């Protein structure tokens, strides 16, 4: 009898607790902004995927701790492992897009292949894609690609910035005539993106351009570097990701190609890319979208509010690495877009469509950057209906064997060169897909 009573009491308590919990969850869920997180923490690209994912997660957690989210709306994130595979990425997107009270606010595909696939789906689902520093180059044209936001730079911008730096070093574009430039690229849409722009530059300035593909995942590059040894290009541009970068630098050392003539894109310039090469990586250069290190205001908050409470997504000593900071910047831009959207639609969870409005009207001024603790980390940017890239600036950094240091100031991509190419490519896409471009002059 007693046991029965006890059991009944226990059951009742559990039931009540469950109901309470459910009720509380319900109330909370009404005021939560859901953000799906497509990450890769396993597979050949994990060394680069992990710090990025950690930076993003830590920034959102810090906002929750410091400000209770964005204007009182807590940020809820759920990770889904893509392994950098397009089909799994699309599955993750479909799995997470409907969660939370308003569905996914914004998605960062974090892979050019997944971006291409989601570009077809996002307009139907009305979810904006932030592809910061990657994705389709022509998606800069917001009148055709209404839902893609390649903030801070595309691969065409990256290629142009790097060639601008090369020209600076040589003493002007006029001196490039007759020089040889090779591109060692990841044989996927990611690696192929810069080729049309580099071909165009080669035509204009009279340097010889050759493109050398490396098959996924990029651990086998002997043949490529043999070609480079025979051909001896004046500069080698590296468009690799994951283990391909460190392999390329090691192979360059093996064939004795000068590392200080190698310049990587901003995805080929992180710590996991250069440390495996040891001393052989010295002198290697790469473009940098943002600053490195943990000396910024935002890092102080993250240490204090996240890591001191043992809530960090990664290891404390990895805070401030190149790709960690990229995750931070990405989280910052996404949260600013939500903030902007809230300024118009009210302080509640935003739908994808509302976040898109926020993105299209995003104006991150130097003052706002300073206020958020990102001063010196990123360059200000302003997005419009037509221009979904905002700013296209990067610095060049060089590895000295133990750390990255900048060897140039901010270099801006030549928009007069890129924009007509973007418009032409976007027009072709619109024709193939039978899309009528929006008239941006009529958008509010």
């Amino acid at each position, binding site marked *: 009898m007693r046991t029965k009573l006890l059991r009944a009491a226990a059951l009742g308590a559990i039931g009540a607790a469950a109901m309470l919990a459910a009720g509380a969850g319900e109330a909370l869920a009404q005021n939560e902004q859901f953000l799906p997180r497509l990450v890769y*923490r396993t597979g050949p690209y994990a060394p680069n995927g*992990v710090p990025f994912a950690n930076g993003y997660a830590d920034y959102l957690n810090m906002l929750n701790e410091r400000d209770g989210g964005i204007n009182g709306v807590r940020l809820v994130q*759920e990770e889904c*492992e893509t392994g950098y595979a397009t*089909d799994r990425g699309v599955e993750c997107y*479909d799995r997470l897009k409907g969660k939370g009270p308003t569905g996914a606010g914004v998605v960062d595909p974090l892979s*050019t292949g997944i971006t*291409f696939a989601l570009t077809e789906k996002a307009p139907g689902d009305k979810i904006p894609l932030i592809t910061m520093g990657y994705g389709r180059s022509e998606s800069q044209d917001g009148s055709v690609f209404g839902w893609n936001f390649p903030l801070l730079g595309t691969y065409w911008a990256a290629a142009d910035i790097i060639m601008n730096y090369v020209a600076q070093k040589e003493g002007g574009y006029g001196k490039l005539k007759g020089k040889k430039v090779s591109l060692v690229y990841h044989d996927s849409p990611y690696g192929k*993106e810069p080729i049309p722009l580099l071909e165009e530059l080669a035509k204009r300035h009279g340097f010889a351009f050759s493109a050398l593909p490396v098959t996924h995942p990029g651990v086998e590059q002997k043949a490529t570097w043999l070609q480079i040894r025979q051909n001896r290009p004046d500069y080698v541009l590296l468009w690799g990701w994951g283990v391909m970068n460190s392999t390329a630098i090691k192979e360059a050392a093996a064939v004795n190609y000068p590392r200080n003539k190698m310049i990587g894109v901003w995805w080929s310039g992180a710590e996991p890319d250069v440390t495996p090469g040891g001393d052989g990586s010295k002198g290697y250069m790469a473009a940098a979208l943002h600053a490195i290190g943990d000396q910024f205001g935002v890092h102080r908050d993250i240490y204090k509010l996240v890591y001191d409470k043992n809530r960090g997504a990664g290891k404390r000593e990895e805070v401030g690495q190149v790709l960690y900071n990229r995750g931070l910047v990405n989280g910052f831009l996404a949260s600013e877009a939500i903030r902007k959207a809230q300024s118009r639609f009210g302080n509640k969870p935003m739908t994808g469509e509302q976040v898109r409005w926020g993105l299209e009207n995003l104006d991150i001024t130097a003052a706002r950057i300073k206020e958020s603790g990102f001063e010196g980390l990123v360059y200000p940017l302003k997005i419009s209906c037509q221009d979904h890239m905002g700013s296209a600036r990067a610095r060049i950094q060089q590895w000295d064997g133990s750390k990255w240091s900048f060897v140039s100031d901010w270099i801006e991509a030549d928009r007069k060169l890129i924009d007509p190419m973007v418009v032409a490519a976007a027009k072709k896409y619109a024709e193939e897909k039978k899309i009528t471009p929006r008239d941006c002059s009529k958008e509010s």
Partner: protein
Amino acid sequence: MLYREAGQFKTSYGDDQAIFPIRQDRIGVAIILLAAYLAIPLTASPYLFTSILIPFLIYALAAIGLNLLTGYCGQVSLGTGGFMAVGAYAAYNFAIRMPELNLLVVFLLAGGCAALVGVVFGIPSLRIKGFYLAVATLAAQFFMDWMFSRIKWFTNYTPSGSVNAPPLSLFGFAIDTPAERYYLILAIVTVMALAAKNLVRGRVGRSWMAIRDMDIAAEIIGIRPLRAKLSAFAVSSFYAGIAGALWAFLHLGSWEPLAFDINRSFTLLFMVIIGGLGSILGCFFGAAFILIVPLALNQIPTALGIPISTAMISHLEFMIFGALIVFFLIVEPHGLARLWALGKEKLRLWPFPH
């Protein structure tokens, strides 16, 4: 008790040779078809359509293609991904360059192109066998990978080598929503699975099986290896080509050669082996197993609210999935289809086994 054929008399050859000679099987198939055509579309969520049902059906179709070649004709192939790529890019080029073509015609032409390519790469099978043939078909896989990423014409000179399916419509109806795409795929898969089932029961299928079981004996009884092997390659590649076109147009929407890389070929071969070599039903089992089990494993921890890291979930998924493959291959080397057949045998005797 329920599953017993006692009392069902076959009074004609037609009855005896029917695809489903047992009445309960016919009822079962009818229920499955009704569910697939009516119940599922009414109840399924978009996630179920786009991430489970659509890829499952297309995988099953490609697996049927590979099973015709490997399971029925005994020619091991690692080139299925390549043949799917031929179908996908052929369909893309037909659709872009001849926009007035009906979508079904585009798919048929894509299958036809894949069949032609399959025949060409099937020629070595006349001289080489077994593992050596697998290596030769691997060449097809790598050649296709190379061709579609290097020859710009196939991708209509897109800068990144990634192409998009044009807007799809059939007889004036736009095919847009997941449910519409599911219906189109389901119809194609139903027709082609039925065709495959009949093909393997007929003269052609029997000649393939004769070649598989002993090619010299088959030659002596009057089967021409050239015709049998090449027809197996052609039909198999036709199926793979159509599956590739469906995968590209209706599942991905935008793709690059990486979508049809060597891993796709391996996945399909695993489906056929785990599902059951020489069984059309096995293709569906294999496709379901390889596609759905990893996705389910990946979602179980989150669904149950167990707090483990994303990386750990992914590692667990690989480990458990690998262990399951080994387990099933040990329990039943002939695949899930054989397990199903054994189950049916047991059901016939239940509840009074001798």
